[in-house]
Every structure is written in C-alpha cells, then in structure tokens.
C-alpha cells in the first residue's frame, strides 16, 4: 500500500497495490489503520487503480475502515474502481454507503 497525505485538505490517499484477498487484507488493514491514526485525516480515499484482483475480503476491509474513520470524525471514499472491483462492491450494497470519490 502506498499512502500520501495532503496537509491543506487533511486528505489521506491510500493506494492499494496488492491483490486483495483474506491474506493481503490483514496487512493492508494494519497499514491503513496505522496511517489513519498517524494523520487523523478529515477524508480518507482508497485508490483501487492498481487492484487487479479482489474478493469479498475487500468488502470487510473497506467497511471496517469506514467505521474506524467515522468514529474519528472523518469521511471515507473509494476511487478508481475497476469493473471487477465495482461488481463486488455493488453486490454487497457497499456503494450505497460509501461514495465514489472525485478527490483524486
């Protein structure tokens, strides 16, 4: 995962560069939570541009971070969804809760 923090907007962009399954989700989760605690962003955007594979572990990953960021008073969005990632999110109803970002 690559993270970038934009100080003026208090925007944290987390770019996922792995395939997302149960194994990699654990690592991404740890890294994301660390970065969120470190910067206390107003907005977090998960960038899926480089995600070539994602199974349902991605739903739990995003939903879990959504709850965490909400507790800290911030917002969470997702960006650059590939067709297959979008399909998985739509199936779970996740996109009714979490907006697709135009911040990046």
């Amino acid at each position, binding site marked *: 995962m690559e993270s970038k923090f934009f100080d003026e907007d208090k925007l944290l962009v987390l770019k996922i560069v792995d395939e997302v399954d149960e194994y990699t*989700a654990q690592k991404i*989760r740890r890294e994301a939570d660390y970065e969120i605690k470190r910067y206390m962003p107003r907005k977090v955007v998960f960038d899926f541009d480089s995600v070539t*594979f994602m*199974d*349902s572990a991605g739903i*739990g*990953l995003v939903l*879990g971070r959504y709850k965490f960021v909400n507790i800290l008073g911030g917002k969470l969005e997702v960006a650059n969804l590939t067709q297959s990632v979008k399909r*998985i999110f739509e*199936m779970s109803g996740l996109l009714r809760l979490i907006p697709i970002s135009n911040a990046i």
Partner: protein
Amino acid sequence: MKEQFENEMKLEFKSKSSNEAFARITVAAFASQLDPTIEELADIKTAVSEAVTNCIIHGYENTTGIVKITGKLQGNKIILEISDNGKGIENVEVAKEPLYTTKPNLERSGMGFTIMESFMDKVDVESIVDIGTKVTMEKSIKSNNVSLENKSEELSI
C-alpha cells in the same frame, strides 16, 4: 460406469491464507485451456478464492488442515470441487444467505457464497458437522475454441 472427462487435475495444500493466490492462479491456469475471456477467468478466480477462504477461516478456523481442489473439463465446462475436513456447516441454507457471517469480528462480510453463486453457473454445498464441507461449482465458457474454429471455417467458405 465412471464418467469420462477430457482433462482432470487435483490440488492439495495446507490451510494457510497465503495459499489463496496460489490456489486461484493454479485453477485459472487449468481453466485457461477452455480459452475463457479475461472476465470469465476473473469470475472463476474470485469464486475459488471465496471457497478456499471458507475452508481456511471457517472449516479449519485457522488451525492446520488440508484444502483439496479437483478440477474437471468437459466440453466447454469447468467443474470444480473445493473441500476441507474441517468443522462443517450446521445449516447450509442459512450460511448461503447474503451478509450472513459467523465471524463479523474478523471483518468477514458474509458475501462468499453469494459471490460464488453469481460468478459461477451452478454452486452446490454439501456439509456434515465435524466431517467437512465440499463445494461443487460449474461454469460454462461461452467463448471457447469450438466457436472460433467454426468462425474460421465460415471464413474459408
């Protein structure tokens, strides 16, 4: 008489989640003999990933066991069996419902079976408590070589 398949494979590996990528990539390589589209291949990989995750997280609950996959090709169809000798599922119908999970604390979404069912043509789950679970999935590849051969024949006329 035992049914004859054009090709068959068997795969066994330890129930470690680090093997999920190995499992889906291996099955995808096997399935590629049917000349699927990228999307069809992605569907198969995702369904395999879900079934293997279930074996590891639910069947064996992160203890050590063996996950087995058999793959068969028949015509333009791939048939996959993914099984474990883990704890089994008490009520398969309930487990298959969207958003049902026994492990919300692990951020499991409960979408595994729903994804398998929508990405494959047919999904069948057999489970016996304390014996194990077997998921059988089928998918027909619509863009297989047969139609390509027909096309080239048409062209040569």
